[in-house]
């Protein structure tokens, strides 16, 4: 009764042997994550690398190795540290290659979620905006730099308690509504309730001209303007790319070439905040720590609206925001 789709031509997944397979980041000598498609074999692909060992998620106690894997897939070459950090989260296809008929190839090769955590604990304090996303490999251009930046931030000893905690998107599975609500009441009650020290979350609302609704960000999860800016970019990109549904295809066509990043770094949009006195200031003028203490609200304004704010600061903040 089941619709067997296994009988697929091998040709359909052919990779011409003459071509060197590159992974999607354009780096040569790296095969993309191994195929385990329908027939769990792509014989011609160089299974070299880095990627596999580095990216496999293995089950096991922290620090445990799985030497069996290396013998199973002898083509793997030792990873280089940079590659390991570059693609820490791409799953290795090899573990998925067990088919129904096969004896479980994967026994003993359980994914090392714990191992992955080791990598991240070495960059503790370097929580990416919004938390370390277990699923996504970092954006292409940003990868090496931002991870390095974050590592140096970590070493620089940013002491905000929440930033030091490892985070996985959506785990534990608690609704963001609850998380936000808890966070805002924790920051009020920290002393009374647990006697625990520690800085609760610092949620500020972020609105954007033209966006149908506003968001909240926790300033304590960032340690620099750069991080905040990338997080906001991610959060609001759907608006500028015309993805709010009502614009539909028209919006997509109109805006698809423009990225919010360019908008922020260009003159289209500026990031501003309301400080304790109720004044609207351009983001980037004061040191980060002072900013987090005084910022009440954030607003992404059209460049033309921000003319009233100190003109010198516009230049300064533009330069600061540039990578």
């Amino acid at each position, binding site marked *: 009764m089941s*619709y067997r789709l296994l009988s697929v031509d091998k040709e359909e997944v052919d990779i011409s042997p003459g071509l060197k397979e590159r992974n999607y980041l354009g780096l040569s000598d790296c095969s993309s994550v191994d195929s385990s498609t329908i027939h769990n074999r792509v014989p011609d692909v160089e299974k070299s690398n880095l990627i596999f060992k580095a990216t496999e998620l293995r089950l096991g106690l922290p620090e445990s190795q799985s030497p069996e894997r290396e013998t199973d897939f002898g083509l793997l070459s030792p990873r280089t540290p940079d590659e390991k950090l570059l693609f820490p989260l791409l799953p290795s296809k090899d*573990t*998925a290659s067990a088919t129904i008929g096969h004896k479980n190839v994967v026994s003993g090769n359980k994914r090392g979620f714990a191992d992955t955590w080791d990598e991240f604990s070495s960059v503790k304090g370097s929580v990416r905006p919004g938390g370390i996303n277990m699923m996504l490999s970092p954006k292409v251009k940003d990868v090496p730099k931002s991870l390095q930046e974050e590592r140096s931030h970590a070493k620089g000893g940013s002491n905000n308690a929440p930033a030091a905690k490892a985070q996985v998107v959506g785990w534990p599975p608690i609704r963001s*509504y609850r998380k936000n609500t808890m966070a805002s009441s924790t920051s009020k009650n920290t002393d009374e309730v647990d006697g625990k020290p520690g800085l609760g979350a610092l949620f500020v609302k972020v609105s954007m001209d033209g966006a149908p609704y506003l968001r909240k960000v926790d300033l304590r999860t960032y340690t620099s303007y750069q991080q905040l800016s990338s997080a906001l970019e991610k959060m609001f990109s759907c608006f500028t790319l015309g993805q709010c549904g009502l614009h539909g295809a028209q919006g997509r066509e109109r805006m698809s070439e423009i990225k919010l990043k360019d908008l922020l770094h260009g003159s289209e949009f500026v990031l501003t905040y309301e400080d304790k006195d109720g004044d609207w200031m351009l983001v980037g003028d004061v040191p980060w720590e002072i900013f987090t203490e005084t910022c009440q609200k954030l607003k992404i304004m059209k460049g033309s609206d921000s003319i009233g704010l100190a003109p010198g600061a516009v230049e300064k903040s533009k330069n600061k925001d540039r990578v």
Partner: protein
Amino acid sequence: MALRLPSKVLEHILSFIDSNEDRNSVSLVCKSWFETERKTRKRVFVGNCYAVSPAAVARRFPEMRSLTLKGKPHFADYNLVPDGWGGYACPWVDALAAKSPSLEEIRLKRMVVTDECLEKIAASFKDFKVLVLTSCEGFSTDGIAAIASTCRNLRVLELRECIVEDLGGDWLSYFPKTSTSLVSLDFSCLDSEVKISDLERLVSRSPNLKSLKLNPAVTLDGLVSILSRAPQLTELGTGSFAAELKPEAFSKLSKAFSNCKQLQSLSGLWDVLPEYLPALYSVCPGLISLNLSYATVRMPDLVELLRRCSKLQKLWVMDLIEDKGLEAVATYCKELRELRVFPSEPDLDATNIPVTEQGLVYVSKGCRKLESVLYFCVQFTNAALITIARKRPNLKCFRLCVIEPFAPDYKTNEPLDKGFKAIAEGCKDLRRLSVSGLLSDKAFKYIGKHAKKVRMLSIAFAGDSDLMLHHLLSGCESLKKLEIRDCPFGDTALLENAAKLETMRSLWMSSCFVSFGACKLLSQKMPRLNVEVIDEHPPKTRPESSPVERIYIYRTVAGPRMDTPEFVWTLHKNPEIGVSRLAIK
């Protein structure tokens, strides 16, 4: 020759059938039954807004009075679905405004609703009565004001955990100045203050008001004043309890509560100071539902409160209740049907969560009517699961979240396979199951074999191989919704069980090993499924073998959807890329 039931008689019979599942079965008998059923169905439920077109629904059910719609997949609650994915209410409201002007009730869950949409609802449905928005977003308090001012017969307005652009508390003043027909008002998710005088006046002129859930901005004084004007309330969500403890404040509060003789459900209680809890004692004996999940109160104070709640059926609480507190619940709350224990520190690093498996075991042993559980803790044991299954075979919903991924039975270091086997085997009426902890393929073999009535299954960080998915898809007969994250399987099981997917509402897989090639193949072969590949960071070229970040598959008779954002790939958008040779550069 078969006798035909006169349609009038059939209509009369059908008027006794409310369950939509039964009505769906009725409509499959023959054409005339289909016709009679569709003309008499008043309450329509659409579990996936993309499974059917709004026009088709409006056409099929001309007498529709109530529509319930769900949009985003469940894992959107945990930020696994990027913003802008979809789930827009507008097309539905537009279609219904034209074709079903007698619509009275709209309930939306996880959908994007705009102010324009709300205004349209207000303007189009003359006898509009009920608006319930759960986990929705995209609108502001202006939209709410439109509903309040225009829908003269409004009975229910509930905003449950929505993200609302809060432009201030004025919306409250837009309700009709004469008496209202309000029965239920829930604005607990709004941030800004409403004028207490507006609220007092509204409550005073709403004689039918039974359920009122305030937002945290309402102070204790405000609460006292409201309660004195609405002693008939059966459901109350308080505002914030954080206020300086003055003796008169306490006694006023106490008195106000003691006047609410019909109160059955209590929630809110943000920032509640333990010193205020005794003010609630007078209502405890009548309480059926108590939501303490935002109350950071310690175990002794919780126990003092809970031991007075002998009729309690639903309890939501934080893990601050500790095992000891749950033992007290097991002793005093013998009517308990539903228990949810939330973590007070929802971090992966948390090792000091004060509840253990023992707490849940106490409740399972002591509360015979327990049928629904949501429990967060750090680790668990097989023995505990086996005991729970043995004691509570009547469980219908069992959601266990062992916060530490891959955590084995901490006493024996084995996977939790045996424990979940016991649950699947023992709880024959189980309809919803969430598993966690260290689980091998075996666990899923048991679940596939025994969990015949499970309709919704949630899995994270589990399994060894494709076998796991295969067991589930080939075994669980009643499976309607399957959501999986971070598990090591993909193509083979998915493709082998493709037909099963047409019997389910949806399948979600994220951070698994599903290749792009498999997604394309599935889309091509199964035209009645929408296969969506959701990649926020798609590669420039997509080799067949590249894994996808997320895949969301659902059955549909509406065809491919037209409102996908850039980061959602569907075959429909990319027809030229067939499953054929790809030159990979």
